[in-house]
C-alpha cells in the first residue's frame, strides 16, 4: 500500500498539501481564485440580486406583491399544473425504469436514448408542436373547435407542454440506479412466495425511494419553472392562463420590478430547496454510482 493512500479525510487534506501530485501554493490559490470569481459572477451575485430586488422597497412592498389576485391565480395555476404533470411523469418514470432496468429486450438502448429527447429539444419547439397539433391552424384544430374543446390557450395545453418538458426526469434518476441494483432481490421475493404487487411495494419501492423522491422533486421544480414551452401554448391571459414564470414576465415588462422579483423569489426558493434535496439525497445514496441531473 502506498504511503499516500490513507483513507480518512483529515489525512487526505494534509497529505495533498505535501503530496508530490499537487500544484504549488501559488497555482492552487490562482485556481481557487478563478473558480471563486467565476462562481461569484454567475451564481452568487444573481442569487443575491433576486432577493435584493424583491426587497428593494421593504418587506411590506414585498408581501403586498402576493396580495394581488392575478399573482394568486398564477400561483394556483402553477400548483395545479404541477399536481397533474408530476404524478403522471412519476408513473411513467417508474414504468419505464422497471421495463428498461429489469428486462432485456430488443430496442432497449434506442428507448433509453429516446427518453432524453425532450431535454434536447428547445422549449419553444416543445410548445410549438402542440400548437401545430391542437391550435386553430393545427391538425385537430377544426374538430376541436366544432366540439368546443379548448386545448391551446387553456389548461390542457399548459399541462401537455409541461409534461413534455419534464417527461425524462424521474426515469433518468431511476434507470441507472435500478440497473445497478439488478434483479436478484425481486427474484428472491418471488421465490419466497410474494405476489407481484408485494414484491414491488416491499422490495423495489424501498430500494428506489430516495432516487424516486429526488426525481419527483426535480421534475416538480422544472414543471413549476417552465417558461418557454408554456409561453407558446398559454396565450398569456391574465388571471386565467398565466403560470408563475409567465406572471414574472408580465410584471417585469410592465416595469413592476419589485412584484416581478417577489414572484421570482418564490421560484428561487423552490430551486434552492431542490438543490438542498439533491445534496441530502445524494449523501443518503452515496454508494450508488449515479448519473447527474
Amino acid at each position, binding site marked *: 500500500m*502506498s504511503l*499516500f493512500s490513507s483513507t480518512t479525510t483529515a489525512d*487526505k487534506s494534509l497529505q495533498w498539501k505535501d503530496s*508530490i*501530485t*499537487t500544484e504549488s501554493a501559488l*497555482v492552487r490559490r490562482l*485556481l*481557487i481564485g*478563478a*473558480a471563486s470569481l*467565476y*462562481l461569484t459572477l*454567475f*451564481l452568487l*451575485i444573481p442569487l443575491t*440580486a433576486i432577493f435584493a430586488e424583491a426587497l428593494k422597497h421593504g418587506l411590506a412592498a414585498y408581501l403586498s406583491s402576493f396580495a394581488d389576485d392575478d399573482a394568486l391565480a398564477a400561483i394556483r395555476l402553477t400548483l395545479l399544473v404541477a399536481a397533474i404533470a408530476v404524478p403522471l411523469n412519476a408513473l*411513467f418514470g417508474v*414504468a*419505464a425504469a*422497471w*421495463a428498461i432496468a429489469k*428486462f*432485456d*429486450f430488443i430496442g432497449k438502448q434506442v428507448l433509453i*436514448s*429516446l427518453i432524453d429527447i425532450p431535454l*434536447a*429539444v*428547445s*422549449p*419553444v*419547439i416543445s410548445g*410549438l408542436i402542440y*400548437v*401545430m*397539433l391542437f391550435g386553430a391552424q393545427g*391538425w385537430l384544430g377544426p374538430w376541436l373547435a366544432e366540439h368546443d374543446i379548448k386545448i391551446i390557450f387553456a389548461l390542457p395545453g399548459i399541462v401537455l407542454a409541461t*409534461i*413534455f418538458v419534464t*417527461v425524462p426526469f424521474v426515469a433518468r434518476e431511476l434507470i441507472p440506479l435500478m440497473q445497478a441494483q439488478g434483479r436478484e432481490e425481486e*427474484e428472491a421475493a418471488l421465490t419466497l412466495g410474494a405476489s407481484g404487487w408485494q414484491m*414491488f411495494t416491499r422490495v423495489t419501492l424501498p430500494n428506489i425511494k430516495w432516487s424516486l423522491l429526488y426525481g419527483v422533486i426535480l421534475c416538480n*421544480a422544472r414543471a*413549476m*419553472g417552465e*417558461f418557454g414551452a408554456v409561453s407558446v401554448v398559454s396565450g398569456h391571459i391574465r388571471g386565467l392562463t398565466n403560470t408563475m*414564470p*409567465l406572471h414574472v*414576465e408580465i410584471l417585469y415588462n410592465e416595469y413592476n420590478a419589485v412584484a416581478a*422579483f417577489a414572484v*421570482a423569489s418564490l*421560484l*428561487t426558493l423552490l*430551486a434552492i430547496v*431542490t*438543490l*438542498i434535496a439533491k*445534496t441530502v439525497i445524494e449523501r443518503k445514496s452515496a454508494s450508488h454510482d449515479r448519473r447527474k*441531473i
Partner: protein
Amino acid sequence: MSFTLKQPSVLPGFSLALGFTLFYFSLIVLIPLSGLFVKTSALTWDQFWNVITDPRAVASYRLTFGASLVGALINGVFGSIIAWVLVRYHFPGRSVVDALVDLPFALPTAVAGITLAAIYSPNGWIGQYLEPLGIKVAFTPLGVLVALTFIGLPFVVRTVQPVLQDLDREVEEAATTLGANRWQTFWAVVVPELWPALLTGIAMAFARAVGEYGSVIFIAGNMPMKSEITPLLIMTKLEQYDYAGATALGVVMLVVSFVLALIINLLQWWSSARHMNQ
C-alpha cells in the same frame, strides 16, 4: 443466439410497464414531434428554403450558434477549473459550492433572465461598472452570451468532476517519480484522461444553449438582425400567425438538436469506453 424480442425472466409486469411507457411516450412526445415534420411538407422545397435562408433567420442562427459556442467554450475553461478545485482542494464551504453549481439547472429560466438583465443593465450591480468602460451587456449580443454562459455552467463541471474523482493518483505519482514536473504530468497524464468528458460537457452546454429561450429574451434586447435568437424568431412568427415559417425554423432547430444529441451520445460512449479500459 436465437432471435427473441425479450429475454425470458421470472419478474412480472414487463408488458404492462413497457406498454404504458411506449403508449405514454408516443402520445406525449413522438407523435407531436413527428407532426411537426409532416406539417413542413405543406411547404414546397423552395418555400421552405426561402424561409430558412431568409437574412433575418441567418442572422439569428449566427447569433444563436455563435454565442452558444463561445459560452460553451468559456464554460469548458472555467468548468474544468471548478471541477478541479472541487475534487482536488479542500476549502471551507466546498459542499455548498458543489451544490450551488447546479443552480442554473434548478432556477426557472425566466427568473434567470430578469435577474441577469437587472444585474447587467447600465445601472445594475455589474452593469454600472462596465458602462464607464464603454461595455454594454444588457440589450446587446453580449447579453445573449452572458445568459447562455450562465445556463451552460453546470454541464462541464458535472461531466469532468466524476472522471477527475476516479482518476488514479498513483499514475500521477509515477509520472512525478519518473522526473516529470507538475505541468508535464498535468498535460501528459491528466489531460488525456479528461478530454472525452470535457468535450461531452462542452457539447452538452452548447446543445442546451442553442435551444435556450427564457433566460435570453430579457437581456437580449431582441433587435431583428442584431440580437434576436432563433427560438425568439420562431415565437415572433407564431405571434404573427406565420405558422409555416415557424414550423420551417422549428424543423431546422429540431434537426440541429438531434444531430447534437447524437454527437453527445457518441462522446459519452467514447468516454465510458475509455473508462472501462482502465
